[in-house]
């Protein structure tokens, strides 16, 4: 039987006797290896800093080997142990030990670092330079499996900034890692691929692209290797990040199917889930058929479950993945995905992690767009109240996304959804958003109003006006004012809002717009320097000149003409810059003269034109591709 833990710890600092110290460290090591409970005992006795201290003094090979092994064991399988090792600076000493002349010390330090790196608490970045990097690159070629692998893992952590990446390249890291990539053992290949991904990340250089192409097939192949798969998806995600050119190649190599298979495995660890979900999220970012492949891989239930995972990193990765998937109109519309993801996404709006809240709210923007099952799920899950609460969140990112989600919820909203949103969202919140400190939030507020008045009946317009206490129209008018200091984009959307009131509200709506004081702004906007503003103003004129031949319409045309609209429109017709304007201009001119036969379609219908209709009531490209 060995001595008691307290005795052993006391012997660590016995000043004189070298052999006694060596024996004490070795005894401690043999007791704690594979024994969580004993590790706990020694950690609470303060053994870790003492062993680390021995590691730092020039104590000779055998003692260093035993110390490194003990430190590695403390760092394995026990959070308190890892914390103690990190807090006492153990990692830095182990890194120094890698430069030892003594092979046994290098091996022991490598094994210990490998243990440390298995913990999620392990440092993500090291600041090594010069000779240390050169030494690591040399170790990449070590005969011992563990040493070469660990050298690659350390290098992967030396690529945090472009300067560090350059230093690793300078030390010859690229060649060393590429050589290691060709090793027979999967663990070494995986470590090399991981380090290469880190080394190349964020680097758009053509050379980097070429290396990425070389690394990709190795990583995809390693996905099928059970021994090392844990770290592979994460490395793949890093490799594919910022490199859309490789997404196709990866998908062609069946990366999506292989990754999805990991999620189907019930034993899938947290680390594997995080890497897999991130890699899938990246692969589904830009390509519709990749999203379809993932949808067909039958792992949506697993992805949805991951949104509620106890591990914050898994939840964040799942949010990222769902966010990519939510960019697909087809994937959302043709399945119940939207409805399935909405409730967990709403739970994530209250996540302790701010980043997760932001991703979840951005995802919801897309999910609630035009998908009735998802919208019903939002209403059923009490999500509206959460969204409304989020419009006053301290983080601007969250306010933007919340307002955006509400805006999209109102896009083509059913009567039920429309009523529910207006009931849940106090008008004061909209006013607060419209005068938010963040310009993006102000823009969302106007777009939200634009959608409130789109595709609805005169009674809806009336109800919406009542909801605002009669001031919604005034808000649109003031933010359409060219003399006010409002950015052109927001002015154009304010004009579209007014246009929607005129179209949806029919006679009453058109009369309200004419009486709102908007006419001078509309006319002035016809000769604005901004194309979008001019176009929106033309649409307003068209809407107000409806319906042809009716006395009220003729009166409005006359009023607009009196305000200078006719002259401004003629000016537009002679002005060559925008074809869009010319086409709309022709229509508008015709209307104004009362002789045209083009005219706008009925309520809710699309106006004639060249594919710009969606601009009229809704958003442009950002309807679907929210905030990316």
């Amino acid at each position, binding site marked *: *039987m060995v001595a008691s833990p307290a005795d052993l710890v006391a012997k660590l600092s016995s000043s004189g006797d070298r052999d006694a110290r060596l024996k004490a460290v*070795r005894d401690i*090591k*043999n007791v704690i*290896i*594979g*024994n*969580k*409970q004993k590790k706990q005992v020694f950690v609470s006795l303060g053994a870790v800093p003492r062993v680390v201290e021995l590691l730092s003094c020039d104590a000779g090979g055998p003692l260093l080997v035993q110390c490194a*092994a003990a430190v*590695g*064991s403390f760092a*394995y*399988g026990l959070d308190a142990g890892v914390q103690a090792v990190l807090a006492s600076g153990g990692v830095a000493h182990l890194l120094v030990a890698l430069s030892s002349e003594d092979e046994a010390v290098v091996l022991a330090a490598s*094994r210990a670092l*490998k*243990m440390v790196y298995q913990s999620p608490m392990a440092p993500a970045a090291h600041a090594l330079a010069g000779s240390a990097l050169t030494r690591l690159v040399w170790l990449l070629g070590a005969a011992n*499996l*563990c040493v070469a692998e660990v050298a690659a893992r350390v290098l992967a952590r030396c690529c945090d900034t472009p300067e560090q990446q350059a230093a690793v390249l300078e030390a010859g890291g690229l060649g060393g890692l590429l050589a290691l990539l060709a090793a027979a*053992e999967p663990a070494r290949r995986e470590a090399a691929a991981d380090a290469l991904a880190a080394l190349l990340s964020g680097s758009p250089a053509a050379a980097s692209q070429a290396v990425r192409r070389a690394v990709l097939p190795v990583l995809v192949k390693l996905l099928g290797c059970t021994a090392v798969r844990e770290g592979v998806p994460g490395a793949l995600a890093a490799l594919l990040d910022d490199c859309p050119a490789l997404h196709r190649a990866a998908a062609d190599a069946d990366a999506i199917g292989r990754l999805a298979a990991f999620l189907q495995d019930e034993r899938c660890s947290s680390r594997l889930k995080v890497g897999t979900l991130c890699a899938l999220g990246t692969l589904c970012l830009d390509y519709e058929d990749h999203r379809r492949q993932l949808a067909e891989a039958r792992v949506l239930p697993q992805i949805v479950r991951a949104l509620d995972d106890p591990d914050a990193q898994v939840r964040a990765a799942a949010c990222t993945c769902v966010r990519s998937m939510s960019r697909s109109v087809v994937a959302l519309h043709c399945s119940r995905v939207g409805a399935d993801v909405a409730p967990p996404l709403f739970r994530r709006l209250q996540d302790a992690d701010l980043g997760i809240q932001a991703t979840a709210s951005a995802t919801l923007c897309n999910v609630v767009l035009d998908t009735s099952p998802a919208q019903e799920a939002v209403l059923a899950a009490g999500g509206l109240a959460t969204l409304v609460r989020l419009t006053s969140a301290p983080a601007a990112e969250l306010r933007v996304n919340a307002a955006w989600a509400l805006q999209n919820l109102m896009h083509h909203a059913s009567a039920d959804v429309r009523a529910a949103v207006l009931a849940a969202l106090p008008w004061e919140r909209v006013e607060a958003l419209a005068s938010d400190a963040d310009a993006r939030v102000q823009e969302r507020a106007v777009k939200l109003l634009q959608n409130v008045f789109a595709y609805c009946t005169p009674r809806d317009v009336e109800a919406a006006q009542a909801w605002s206490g009669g001031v919604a129209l005034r808000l649109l008018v003031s933010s359409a004012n060219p003399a006010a200091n409002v950015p052109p984009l927001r002015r154009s959307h304010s004009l579209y809002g007014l246009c929607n009131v005129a179209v949806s509200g029919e006679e009453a709506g058109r009369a309200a717009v004419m009486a709102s004081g908007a006419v001078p702004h509309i006319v002035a906007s016809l000769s604005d320097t901004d194309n979008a503003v001019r176009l929106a103003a033309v649409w307003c004129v068209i809407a107000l000149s409806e319906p042809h031949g009716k006395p009220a319409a003729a009166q409005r045309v006359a009023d607009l003409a009196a305000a200078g609209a006719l002259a401004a429109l003629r000016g537009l017709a002679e002005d060559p810059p925008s074809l869009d304007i010319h086409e709309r201009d022709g229509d508008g001119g015709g209307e104004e003269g009362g002789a045209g036969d083009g005219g706008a379609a009925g309520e809710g219908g699309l106006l004639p034109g060249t594919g710009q209709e969606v601009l009229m009531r809704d958003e442009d490209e950002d309807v679907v591709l929210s905030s990316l």
Partner: protein
Amino acid sequence: MGRGEASDRRRIQLSEWKRKLDAVKIQKEDTNKLIMNFLVTEGYVEAAHTFELESGTPPGVDLGAISDRMEIRRAVQRGNVEEAIERVNDLNPEILEEKHQLSFHLQQQRLIELVREGRTEEALEFAQEYLAPRGEEHPAFLGELERTVALLAFEDARSCPVADLMDIAQRQKTASELNAAILASQCQEREPRLPGLLKMLVWAQDHLDEKLIYPRINDLVSGELVEPPADH
């Protein structure tokens, strides 16, 4: 063989069979590698060393590591589990850190050895200190843990219901598990390839029996081809 339906099958005479066997070219180096693989995996360091000198076949591993492995295995076989644990931790601390079951079995063996030596009080203390916490941490070990601790409840552990644990075969089992783990940590195969090849030979002959009458290898030790019995 020799059954009634024998006449349905084609018959191949010894001379023809030998001619066919001779036509298959097997590289000398390949047979040498097979032998070296056997010597290395089974841990015959001296023989491997001599074979390397005589045939020029590289062992492919550090023969020193084999000596370590053999000594560790022998330590368990001798019942000196503590020494084995210390040695394996010096060889590669990852092994017992990561292989919980192996680690449990070594501690279990330690307890068995204490019982064998009649150090009951120490055994009891050891069980509480080292085995019980592992059972809590890994419920899968609880059954085995209970069986092992039962040894302490009997006056004569050798004639109790769990006496099999006291058997030398139990030591052998633990030693083999440890040996395999060390081999795996050195990226080596757990078993030599030769026995696998012999199994394939038996399997192939069984299948061939359904189609042919041919000279068979019935004795794997001599490898002698036995002429099929004459037709009746």
